[in-house]
């Protein structure tokens, strides 16, 4: 695309088309659908972190009045160990089945074991208390160090480390070892005048969406089964559930409800297959809603990590070597995002010599799920903290040092491709030139700078646009709208068609009325689904021109399309889109455009954040007093929602840096499974978050879009972390920087 392109609608901040429903409470979320005859499902969860189920007897519960169905792992048809795709890459079907309902062994506190459906949820809960289970409690493994130590209790006796030069002969909690390398790491360090290195820890942190997982399902023997649920990808729910229950895809319709936040945590299934089994067994529609403590205990957290990073640089500031070793907790089943941690850790830098190895480690915690730029915040936290330290050692401004080493067009990445045009330099310059960066710090304050890189993905998106006889239309897309993306789809289609956005209504089709679309994740929706929308809109325009041409008896090439009007270049005729639609019945039937694509060319989005904190040195309490988030959007379709992504990512990251963490007892039981003690930021914790949109167009998208959803959560960990280090003058290694930890650092007891 040309950078000078003028847009009519793109770049304005319109009112979102689903806004009315959202501010009036009419929008229907996962828990909001009820069906006639519906019953309620509840789940019995493990009170232990690691135990063998020696005996399981549900007969008393089954006999309880009002109970209509009971489900256990044995209700799954025999599942084989095949890979299926979900937000986190591949999770085997067997692991998914064992996560959804435990088989023989429980692997974390809150692991689902039995589900009961009853006339009311109160009856279901009473019946759960009648299930007789005998456990043989095992020692839990709660951290990668413990898990990797010789003699550690083994979670899966059949798991052998992959990626080792020699095939291992004993089972291990390390699922995979992987490495990435470039250049000669030893030579790189030999070339360095200054070397910094440190070990870091990041805790288990939850996505913390406000809407608990919920679904209403109906199993029908005639093959018209239905799932209504809150999900980032209803086609993925269909694929996973159909495979777990050995159903044909065509016999299962999944409807994506409005979704109350996901951040990656709603890219897999927990309740849906279980509810469908209960519905099948009871013959009734079943609703299941997780309680908040179930959300924290048994769904999605992001990996806790331990990482060691070492960086070398010459006196002139040239970084010569970056080395790292990352160990990520996968939770109870293999599949942490450590690979993406390895791929992103050093990628903001153009450095010749890099080496990084990663370990995917199982522990007795809930299986991790994708969490906004999965794997990247933890790895880049370690690197960015050290780059700041390096700047101090070299007596350089931290932004200036980054500019000197910044990745740009042509930079070779450690994971393969060379960068096309990217906007890191522009983001660093915008941060450097911001008023925030010029402002002096007060007493007890500190400042942190950090950069963040995320790939962004493309993938499959399907869209059709159905035009109505009056010239209005419906955009049917397959990507659940989690943050206002329907507004962007409406604007992109309107831009392509040259009509007012309000003439087009975007909706999310179910799995039967739109073709397969990958889930909303990977910052792909505005990019990939947007491309599909533009293609569908251009298809509509082409058909409009064809219709006009046939009415004028000219060729379509002789018709020009300007601002929603067909112009006959061979005469004076003009026909508006509405007029063509009105006459469509006489020119070949109604008009419908289609854009089914597998989008490629996703453009990475770099982010640079500035954070000022003030530390109460008597208590260790940290207040964020000023914050600026700079990020490359390529092109901001709806600037206010783009800013919202930056601000939301920043605050989620601030929470991770300051107070969010899973707290476990010595027995591996989660002690803070609620919003009271899992402390996400509240309104009074924060200042306004300044958002600066940088636009370095992604030339693979017709309007220049890069995804913006994820990069914003990467820099805060180090921006906050280093700001604290700067304020207290003591090296920071572990998150969260909760008051007791900061106080101990100040006291020299870190």
């Amino acid at each position: 695309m040309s950078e000078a392109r003028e847009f009519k609608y793109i770049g304005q901040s319109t009112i979102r088309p689903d806004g009315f429903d959202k501010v009036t409470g009419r929008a229907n979320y996962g828990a909001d659908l009820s069906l006639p005859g519906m019953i309620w499902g509840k789940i019995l969860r493990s009170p232990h972190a690691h135990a063998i189920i020696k005996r399981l007897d549900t007969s008393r519960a089954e006999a309880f009045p009002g109970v209509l169905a009971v489900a256990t792992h044995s209700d799954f048809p025999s599942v084989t160990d095949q890979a299926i795709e979900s937000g986190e890459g591949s999770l085997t079907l067997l692991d998914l089945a064992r996560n959804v309902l435990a088989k023989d062994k429980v692997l974390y506190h809150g692991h689902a074991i039995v589900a009961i459906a009853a006339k009311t949820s109160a009856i279901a809960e009473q019946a759960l208390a009648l299930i007789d289970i005998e456990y043989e409690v095992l020692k839990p493994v709660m951290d990668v160090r413990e898990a990797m130590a010789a003699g550690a209790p083994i979670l899966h006796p059949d798991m052998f480390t992959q990626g080792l030069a020699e095939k291992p002969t004993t089972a291990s909690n390390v699922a995979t070892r992987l490495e990435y390398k470039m250049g000669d790491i030893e030579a790189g360090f030999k070339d360095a005048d200054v070397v910094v290195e440190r070990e870091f820890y990041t805790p288990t942190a939850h996505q913390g969406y406000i809407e608990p997982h919920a679904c209403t399902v109906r199993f029908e023997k005639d093959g018209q089964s239905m799932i209504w649920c809150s999900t980032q990808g209803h086609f993925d729910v269909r694929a996973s559930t159909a495979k777990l229950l050995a159903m044909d895809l065509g016999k299962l319709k999944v409807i994506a409800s409005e979704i109350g936040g996901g951040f990656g945590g709603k890219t897999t299934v927990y309740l849906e297959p279980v509810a469908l089994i209960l519905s099948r067994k009871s013959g009734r529609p079943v609703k299941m809603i997780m309680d908040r403590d179930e959300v924290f205990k048994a769904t999605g957290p992001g990996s806790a990590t331990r990482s060691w990073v070492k960086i070398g640089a010459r006196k002139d500031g040239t970084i010569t070597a970056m080395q790292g070793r990352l160990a990520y907790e996968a939770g109870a089943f293999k599949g942490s995002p450590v690979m993406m941690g390895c791929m992103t850790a050093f990628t903001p830098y153009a450095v010749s010599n890099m080496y990084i190895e990663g370990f995917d480690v199982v522990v007795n915690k809930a299986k991790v799920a994708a969490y906004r730029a999965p794997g990247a915040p933890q790895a880049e936290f370690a690197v960015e903290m050290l780059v700041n330290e390096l700047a101090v050692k070299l007596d350089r401004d931290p932004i200036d040092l980054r500019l000197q080493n910044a990745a740009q067009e042509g930079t070779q990445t450690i994971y393969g491709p060379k960068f096309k045009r990217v906007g890191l330099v522009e983001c660093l310059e915008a941060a450097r030139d911001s008023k925030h960066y010029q402002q002096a710090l007060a007493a007890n304050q500190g400042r942190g700078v950090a950069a963040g890189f995320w790939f962004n993905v493309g993938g499959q998106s399907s869209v059709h646009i159905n035009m109505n006889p009056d010239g209005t239309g419906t955009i049917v897309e397959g990507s659940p709208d989690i943050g206002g993306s329907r507004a962007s789809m409406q604007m992109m289609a309107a831009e392509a068609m040259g009509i007012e956005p309000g003439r087009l209504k975007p909706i999310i089709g179910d799995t039967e009325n739109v073709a397969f679309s990958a889930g909303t994740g990977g910052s792909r929706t505005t990019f990939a689904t947007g491309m599909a929308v533009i293609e569908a809109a251009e298809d509509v325009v082409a058909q409009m021109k064809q219709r006009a041409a046939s009415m004028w008896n000219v060729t379509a090439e002789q018709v020009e399309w300007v601002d929603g009007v067909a112009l006959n270049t061979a005469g004076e005729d003009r026909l508006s889109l509405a007029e063509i639609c009105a006459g469509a019945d006489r020119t070949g039937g109604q008009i419908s455009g289609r854009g089914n694509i597998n989008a490629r060319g996703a453009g990475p989005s770099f982010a640079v954040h500035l954070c000022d904190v003030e530390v109460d040195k008597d208590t260790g309490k940290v207040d964020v007093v000023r914050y600026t988030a700079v990020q490359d959007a390529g092109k901001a379709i709806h600037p206010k929602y783009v800013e919202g992504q930056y601000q939301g990512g920043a605050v989620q990251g601030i929470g991770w840096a300051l107070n969010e963490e899973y707290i476990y007892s010595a027995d591996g039981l989660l002690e803070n499974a609620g919003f009271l003690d899992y402390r996400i930021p509240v309104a009074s914790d924060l200042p306004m978050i300044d958002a600066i949109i940088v636009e370095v167009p992604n030339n693979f998208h017709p309007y220049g879009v890069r995804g913006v959803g994820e990069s914003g959560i990467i820099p805060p960990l180090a921006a906050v972390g280093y700001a604290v280090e700067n304020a207290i003058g003591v090296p920071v290694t572990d998150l969260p920087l909760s008051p007791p930890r900061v106080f101990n650092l100040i006291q020299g007891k870190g």
Partner: protein
Amino acid sequence: MAVVDYNAPQSVQEAVALLSGSDIKTKVMAGGTDLIIQSKSQAVEPLRVVDLKHIAEMMSYSLDDGGLSLGPCMCCAEFTALHDVEMLYPGLVEAAYLIGSTQVQGRASIGGNLCNSSPAADTIPALIAIGAKCLIVGAGGERTVAVEDFVTGVGRNCMQPGELLQRILVARPAPGSRDAYLRFIPRTEMDIAVAGAGVSVTLDSQGVCTAARIAIGAVAQTALLVASAADALVGTKLDEASVAKAAAVASAAASPITDRRGTIEFRRHIVGVLVKRATLIAKERAQASL
């Protein structure tokens, strides 16, 4: 506990009668912000609820020369908007303002906070600091107990089955006497106190402290009245050294536990910081009231 029976008596007598005479476990409900959550978490055991919010005197207050007489079930949102009370008992109002969110304050009451008897309750140290008393009524008549003697353990208090808290009574502070309450939490709102400190001081016209009370919360099984810490203030002008001494004595008196909200060492340290800071706020207020 699952609520199986709900009662809304119109008078104290009716409430007292309801509290005895049932085989089902019976609990008094004020705002219900703790009780309803507790009843959800253990869904099996049946529970009978006596809601006191329909009793007019439970919801009202009076403030006169004798001091404050507070209906224990008045919600915190209403209480914290009472400007006449805030003038005299700013620390107690601060404590009530710190209980949960605006929404929780729309239900939760000082009496409920007191009777729930959590070690981390915000209003308990504030009440102890101002010498508040509990008027308890039961089938056998009335009795009055100082707040520091009311709470007897974690979630336990001195009320016998069949008794209920009818009134919270606080003497009117003299000019030169004012209170303050501070707590420490990791965020700015929505947390349970890691530690809390209520302080009241009385200054004479020369600025010399003639009386003081210091109470600390969330650092022992119950909120503690630390007389020895207050003693460090009496006779001084609340200078830095005497305030620091009071803080140190209060820290030493604490016997906290380590849990998901804080460690022993951290709580012990923090409570001292809070005592120091609350004392200085109370001092400023006392000076202004002279």
